[in-house]
């Protein structure tokens, strides 16, 4: 309990005006960070310390678990594979979603509302429903165990999301800008690339963040569609269960390493994150 009150009073001291709020936030952040701290703590211990003694911080600090991962290709290639398909997915999704979002935000056309909802339904499709058909589809076209297969599979839920978020941001751009550009003699592609895209740059950044997020955290599809060459880190982690039991230290270290890319990305979009989560609709 002393931990709780300590954090709260410390924060309260730094912000004397809003003490009650600071206590609530302190407790909530403590709740969020404790499990993560515990993972970090374990990743810096050796297995005998993890299993034989219960310590709140590493008594015998070791980086062996991280060295194991960073020197073994079968481990670190998992990160590389995940990165490759995540980036592919981001590029594919953005390229197809940008014009579509523009169309939805600017024009009315036959079936637009139904089409928009139909796109959203794909975001609602449970990956479990698609796991088996995807496996068969990509096997039959010879894409099984490639990065592009996972990138395309993730496009199922990421493309609708990208359209949804971008549409929200694009609605905020006044239509007069389009009209002025056309009067000035811009062709559509030139207007779109030179004028419009820079205007929604923050929206594109936020969208990229979400595409990254949902592709990075997904396991079911990426595991089903890969075996060796494109195996994601999330699936590699199941390897730690060996004949001698679970290698807790390495498992924890691998977990910590999966958190780092996300943390870095958050840092870059921190000012837009709230608006982004509202899908550009605030």
């Amino acid at each position, binding site marked *: 309990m002393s931990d709780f009150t300590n954090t709260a009073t410390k924060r309260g001291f730094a912000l004397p005006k809003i003490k009650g709020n600071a206590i609530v936030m302190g407790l909530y*952040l403590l709740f969020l960070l404790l499990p993560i701290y515990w993972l970090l703590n374990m990743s810096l211990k050796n297995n005998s310390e993890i299993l034989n003694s219960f310590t709140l911080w590493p008594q015998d600090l070791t980086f062996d678990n991280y060295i194991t991962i960073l020197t073994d290709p079968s481990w670190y290639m998992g990160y590389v594979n995940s990165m490759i398909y995540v980036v592919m997915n981001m590029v594919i999704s953005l390229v197809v979603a940008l014009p579509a979002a523009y169309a939805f935000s600017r024009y009315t056309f036959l079936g637009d509302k139904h089409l928009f909802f139909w796109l959203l339904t*794909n975001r*609602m499709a449970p990956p*479990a429903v698609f796991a088996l058909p995807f496996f068969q589809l990509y096997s039959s076209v010879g894409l099984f165990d490639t990065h592009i297969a996972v990138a395309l599979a993730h496009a199922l839920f990421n493309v609708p999301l990208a359209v949804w978020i971008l549409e929200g941001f694009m609605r905020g751009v006044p239509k007069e800008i389009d009209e002025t550009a056309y009067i000035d003699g811009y062709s559509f592609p030139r207007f779109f690339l030179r004028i419009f895209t820079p205007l929604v740059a923050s929206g594109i950044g936020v969208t990229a963040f979400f595409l990254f997020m949902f592709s990075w*955290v997904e396991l079911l599809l990426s595991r089903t569609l890969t075996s060796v060459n494109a195996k994601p880190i999330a699936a590699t*982690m199941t390897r730690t269960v060996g004949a001698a039991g679970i290698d807790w230290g390495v498992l924890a270290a691998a977990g910590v390493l999966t958190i780092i890319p996300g943390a870095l990305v958050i840092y870059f979009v921190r000012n837009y994150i709230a608006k982004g989560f*509202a899908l550009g609709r605030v």
Partner: protein
Amino acid sequence: MNKTVNQKAWFLILPVLLLVAFSAVIPLMTVVNYSVQDTFGQNKFFWAGLNWFKEMMASERMWDALGRQIAFSTIILAIEIPLGIFVALNMPKKGFWASTCLILMSLPLLIPWNVVGTIWQIFGRVDIGLLGYTLAAMGIDYNYTQDFYAAWATVIVMDVWHWTSLVALLAYAGLQSIPDAYYQAAKIDQASRWKVFRFIELPKIMGVLMIAILLRFMDSFMIYTEPFVVTGGGPGNSTTFLSIDLVKMALGQFDLGPAAAFSIMYYLVILLISYVFYTVMTNLDKRDGH
């Protein structure tokens, strides 16, 4: 904004349409195909009509999984939505602490789902986990692999840990957009804190809150990885939610027909409920004059 009618806009949609058709329509048709056929193996299929659907409708296993799924989604929505709003109301409005809170709160959202499972699997263990160890030291009998209540509590706390920040961030974005004038008016009227919340803040964040409910409902209804890693659906079947059951059936036992029929019904249920949310959401959008 008033939009112009332009049928050529279809050309701009075309790439999305082709991509989604490839990655959604073709697989979905495969599922439909399996759901109306039976096989004796060797890739020979014959027409089975609606038999699989009838079988699944009568299957206690599916109804049980559906019941657990609805219970789970209801519980986490009932906790996460109020808690998220409460946290958002207490967040610093601007400056260093605001961005710090935003970054730290987003952290759980960016962790791969199986790692979330792993974190809680470790955290809850009686021998090596802080939570499990503390509870055991306090004399509480806690074992999420054996005990029904402990397993449910773990899965729910894990989901609250994982996703409350999403609701909080959305509500926070909504609160940020309320002009100061509203609060000043309330102050002049000497409105109580509760009334400020009830009549100013809540109506203003209703739109984003609907998005939060929609997203949380959809994602909790399809939850697979986290409970699978932590409890594996057990003890017994007590945390076997729809997706876990479906994957067991389709990829584990390879019962394609029943699994496909199950898939379609599962999808339709999500679609139906999401459609209701979506309609409410767009109506709210219209009312706010977007």
